[in-house]
């Protein structure tokens, strides 16, 4: 391992600390998934973000932009300095992912439920064009409330989009609290499997397990694959884990200090 996940975590924390507020919970839970995708899995060329033969990535839960921006900067899509401009006037890094603003962002998202359809559309286009690129999307477990998600699931199954991998960030929390308390969705993996998808569930903070799942997805033909990631919202930020107020946080002075301490500690871990 080259500590890529830890680096993403550090940069994301720095961004949020600099701004003083942001979607920390949902950013932290997908760090390992992003690390595997961008450091191992996806065929990409950061110097040529619009490369036709790249694999595509859609962050359907667009509010986790900060984690994606850190990943893209670390891969060299743009200068790391830009990370200091999160949410500033005329920034290239708005709170929700925007394909027109950020090199490497393939789809504009932020209104939940929409990214997955766009990902299915990209996958279908690649089939029509007889291309082998793959498409990855990360969807939140709260986001699964949106009916559009299930329309996309049916579309992808019908069109045999085996070039599409849906990763569900099952961090068990949404904005107002626990997903089970707001709308019990049952066993998510079984539900998706019920739509005909190949569906598996792995520890979403275990990079080897995620890698293994994505490898398996490549071998599955004629049906799309869903990888449910068993994750912790705000993973790695101990004072926010298992906390129902960790969706969007405006940090107190004390929390800023704690973040700084955590950043130092993580930096120590990788040197």
């Amino acid at each position, binding site marked *: 391992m080259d500590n890529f996940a830890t680096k993403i975590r550090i940069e994301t924390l720095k961004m949020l600390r600099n701004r003083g507020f942001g979607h920390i919970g949902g950013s932290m839970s997908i760090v390992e998934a992003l690390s595997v995708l961008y450091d191992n899995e996806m065929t990409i060329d950061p110097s040529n973000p619009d490369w036709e033969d790249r694999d595509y990535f859609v962050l359907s839960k667009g509010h986790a932009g900060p984690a994606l921006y850190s990943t893209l900067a670390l891969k060299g899509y743009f200068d790391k300095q830009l990370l200091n401009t999160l949410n500033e006037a005329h920034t290239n890094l708005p709170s929700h992912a925007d394909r027109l603003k950020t090199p490497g962002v393939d789809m*504009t998202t932020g209104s939940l439920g929409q990214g997955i359809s766009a990902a299915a559309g990209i996958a279908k286009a690649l089939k029509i064009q007889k291309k082998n690129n793959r498409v990855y999307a990360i969807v939140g477990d709260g986001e699964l409330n949106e*009916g559009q998600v299930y329309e996309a699931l049916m579309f992808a199954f019908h069109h045999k989009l085996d070039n599409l991998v849906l990763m569900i960030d099952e961090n068990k929390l949404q904005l107002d609290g626990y997903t089970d308390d*707001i709308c019990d969705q049952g066993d998510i993996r079984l539900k998706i499997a019920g739509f005909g998808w190949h569906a598996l569930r792995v520890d979403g903070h275990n990079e080897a397990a995620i890698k293994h799942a994505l490898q398996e997805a490549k071998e599955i033909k004629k049906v799309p694959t869903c990888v449910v990631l068993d994750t912790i919202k705000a993973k790695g930020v101990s004072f926010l884990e298992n906390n129902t107020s960790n969706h969007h946080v405006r940090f107190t002075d004390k929390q800023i200090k704690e973040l700084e301490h955590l950043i130092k500690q993580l930096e120590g871990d990788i040197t």
Partner: protein
Amino acid sequence: MNVKVKQKFKISNKEMRTTYNDTLVDLAKTDDKIVLLEADLMRAIKTNDFQKKYPNRTLNIGIMEQNMMGVAAGLSVRGLKPYIHTFGPFATRRSFDQLFLSLGYADLNAIIIGSDAGISASHNGGTHMPFEDLGLVRLVPNMTVMEMTDPVMFENILRQLNDQKQLSYLRIVRKHMLSIYQEGSTFEIGKGIVLREGKDATIVAAGIMVANALKAQALLQEDGINVSVIDMFTIKPIDQALLLEYADKTQCIVTAENHNIIGGLGSAVLEALETTPVTVKRVGVKDRFGQVGTQAFLEKEYELTAEDIVKAVKEQL
């Protein structure tokens, strides 16, 4: 209508969302038909207190705005009074067909609160910044469309709407606003409020732009230009009689809105004055998408400041 305007405009003590929660909590004491509907934005609108007091009449249904409109329609079939809240874009754009047909066309009742009016969506950016919500809901026949100016107005209007069988959209800022009206003021839905009298031009504004219009009025006065200012908080049905009167009196109308100049207040005023030769100049968002930034930055970016209103008035004279 019995409106008293404050002498000095300060930031309101109460946030708009607190007014929403407190008013509904109070109304629900004597009205067991009230049902609160939320789509995973309860923390944003802070109705947790209502939920605590009336758990059986709080439906935080999850992130499913389209379903929320349909469920509200069903509640209304049974005579309940659904109060629906989500961010403006999701209360209109996202769920428009359900709002239009299941509520509007089916002639059912609900009060829909669309929060984070225009640039007040601030750092949530383009996906969350409604410059089109008023345009959309204005297209629903018989729907009442309003934009709230401050907490005093908001509370009074909520109390009135609770007694009416109607489908309404209330566009609100979620947090603090400038407080314009004195406690105890009462408002009449469908009637504009003349806040200043002047003969040279009339500024017609709504929402946060009322405060900017008043600022513009003061700036213009320093230059010897006397303008009238109207708070046109009801955008549909619009107060056509008042508009005709002031068009005739001042011969020049400038509208000011925190919304696309297509479809919102400016368009409604133009429509109301279609038979007059009076010029109407619209200050507002010029057919652009939203973006992230502080409200102060966005106000400049989209040319919504008092100075922009002053400029528009001067150009017409």
